[in-house]
């Protein structure tokens, strides 16, 4: 039960996008469609789970003075691995997400969880925390992407269900800010009871 709670808290109570307000750049920059959002979320989740596991394993070996640089090196190594894998197997997605893949390294969610959770907990719990926060991030990105895709081009996951043009502004830059802002309002409203 406790294990399940770790995962669930990452999705709702500690939702990285709507509650912790971390990782705003990829949230705004990559959510032009539901699929792009989901892809970015999955890539971040992979790095998050792997780095959480490794950091919780080596946490007692690292002197606390140099822990932040050490964490950054571990995270950067996994980002490079994910980047190379995506370039090889998902070249189209890699091209769309562009500079945001190497920038996973400075996504505050990952260092935040490394410092705030993995450095204090065991391997299994850290992996679960990575999965929970990762899922929360992926879900939020997919939702933002889906809303922008539906309003902007009348499609969802690439399937067009409204004929004619959508409101292009939602696919362009301003739409990212507006959709995220109003989704946050909705999230606050729903969770404030």
């Amino acid at each position, binding site marked *: 039960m406790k294990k399940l709670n770790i995962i669930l808290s990452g999705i709702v109570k500690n939702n990285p996008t709507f509650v912790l307000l971390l990782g705003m750049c990829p949230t705004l920059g990559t959510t032009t469609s539901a699929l792009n959002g989901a892809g970015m979320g999955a890539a971040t989740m992979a790095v998050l789970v792997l780095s959480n596991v490794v950091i919780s394993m080596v946490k007692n070996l690292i002197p606390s003075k140099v822990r932040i640089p050490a964490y950054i090196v571990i995270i950067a190594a996994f980002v490079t691995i994910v980047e190379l894998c995506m370039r090889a197997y998902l070249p189209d997605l890699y091209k769309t997400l562009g500079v945001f893949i190497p920038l996973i390294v400075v996504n505050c969610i990952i260092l935040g969880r490394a410092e705030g959770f993995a450095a204090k907990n065991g391997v299994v719990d850290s992996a679960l925390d990575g999965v929970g926060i990762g899922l929360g991030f992926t879900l939020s990105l997919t939702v933002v992407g889906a809303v922008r895709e539906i309003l902007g081009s009348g499609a969802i996951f690439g399937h067009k269900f409204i004929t004619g043009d959508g409101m292009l502004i939602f696919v362009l*830059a*301003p739409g990212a*800010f507006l959709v995220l802002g109003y989704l946050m*309002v909705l999230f606050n409203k729903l969770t404030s009871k």
Partner: protein
Amino acid sequence: MEIVLIIIGAILVNNVVFAQFLGICPFLGVSNKVSTSLGMGAAVVFVTTIAAVVAYLLQYYVLVPLGITYMQTIVFILVIASLVQMVELVIKKVSPVLYQALGIFLPLITTNCAVLGVAILLVQKEFDLLESVVFAFATAVGFALALVIFAGIRERLELENVPKALKGTPIALVVAGILAMAFMGFSGLV
């Protein structure tokens, strides 16, 4: 001419915050007051420009000759993180006045993805050294411009009666969205 286009493009047309979505965290976090946003903006301009020079030299004189360009992400982030620390130490020693003004903002810059983003972008765009420096400087000025405008709006927003659910970040995002629309007016300028 090329240089002028890079400057206008980086500051107005492809504004780092409103069009490329880099550096959003400090953009939302340090934009409550115009005076602090000026300090943050200046610190970002300073660090980004230096980081771009270092990143350029590393890429073309270390990574490419050794054939290890896949190490780019790791090398860049480490160099930027230590560079920020070094800049902090140097400024503290050389110019206490500047340190007073920029001091508290410098550690925050390590996690500003605009700095790493610019370093990666200038390699992707295959700029030469002069173009890289100009691009980095102009991008950072674009960031400072966005930050100061945004802080000015938020200062006035403090006095307004904002609905409860919209308070804080949501209203800030909506304002940023409208600002982004205004900046779209610059597209087609280059």
